[in-house]
């Protein structure tokens, strides 16, 4: 499912919901989960609107912005403290969860100043129709989790010092 609209006027569209329910083994759970997710989003929306009403949009945007900029600066600082180096490694997976298949993931990690460069050249091509198809995307999340998961706000800019080549 590529991103598509399933909610209008804060209500789940029943025709699309029915289609999704007919696509799964647990149709009641599918509906239940969609309702839960929608209401969780609405709760976040409520909190943001309360902030907008009490402090204004400039305060909200500046807070989000400051969070991101502070995290970026901190990540750069931490990376800068490491010695400049190059580390090479690789892993080989032997299954795509559907068939046996040897897949190599090659990685050369270079740290220069405040930048980390991930070089995946030499890796097997990414799959488009198997479960194991989020190598680069998953890497970004794993990097965040391993490096700064417990000590800083979670936002996207902690990956700004990362560069990727393949």
């Amino acid at each position, binding site marked *: 499912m590529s991103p598509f609209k399933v909610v209008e006027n804060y209500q789940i569209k029943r025709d699309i919901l029915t289609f999704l329910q007919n696509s799964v083994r*647990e149709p009641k759970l599918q509906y239940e989960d969609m309702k839960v997710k929608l209401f969780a989003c609405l709760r*976040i929306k409520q909190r*943001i609107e309360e902030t907008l009403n009490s402090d204004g949009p400039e305060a909200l945007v500046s807070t989000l912005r400051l969070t991101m900029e502070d995290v970026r600066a901190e990540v750069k600082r931490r990376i800068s403290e490491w010695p400049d180096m190059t580390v090479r490694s690789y892993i080989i997976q032997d299954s795509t969860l559907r068939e046996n298949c040897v897949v190599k993931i090659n990685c050369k990690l270079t740290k220069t100043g405040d930048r980390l460069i991930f070089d995946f050249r030499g890796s097997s091509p990414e799959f488009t129709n198997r479960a194991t198809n989020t190598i680069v995307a998953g890497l970004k999340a794993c990097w965040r989790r391993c490096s700064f998961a417990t000590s800083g706000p979670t936002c996207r800019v902690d990956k700004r010092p990362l560069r990727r080549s393949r």
Partner: protein
Amino acid sequence: MGAAPGAKWGDVITGVYSASGDLAIASAGGVLIFSALVHHPIKFIIKNWMNEPTVGVKEGDGFIHNDSRYGNVHNTDQSMILPIFHDGSCCAGSPRPCTRARTARSSPAACPRWPKAQ
């Protein structure tokens, strides 16, 4: 919050994204990888659906997705994305990636063969 077994075990996360689709703040609990990747479908929506006459993005709309090629861990994880408007313009987004209902093996929404409970 979640209803699926994995969600009850904590396999969920939520976050607030900027109007351009970048993750600004994620919730403290949950599986980080979900919210770290959901900026991809948000930017897909901004690029492809916001100005598309047949779709559009307006207040009250919500989007769902699970395809890992558009930003997710794997196809069994579903994300709900809700744009937030203020004074007529989109100011933020609140996606809610969550572990998912199990999908049928042969459906286009399925993870091949072994949808996992997490």
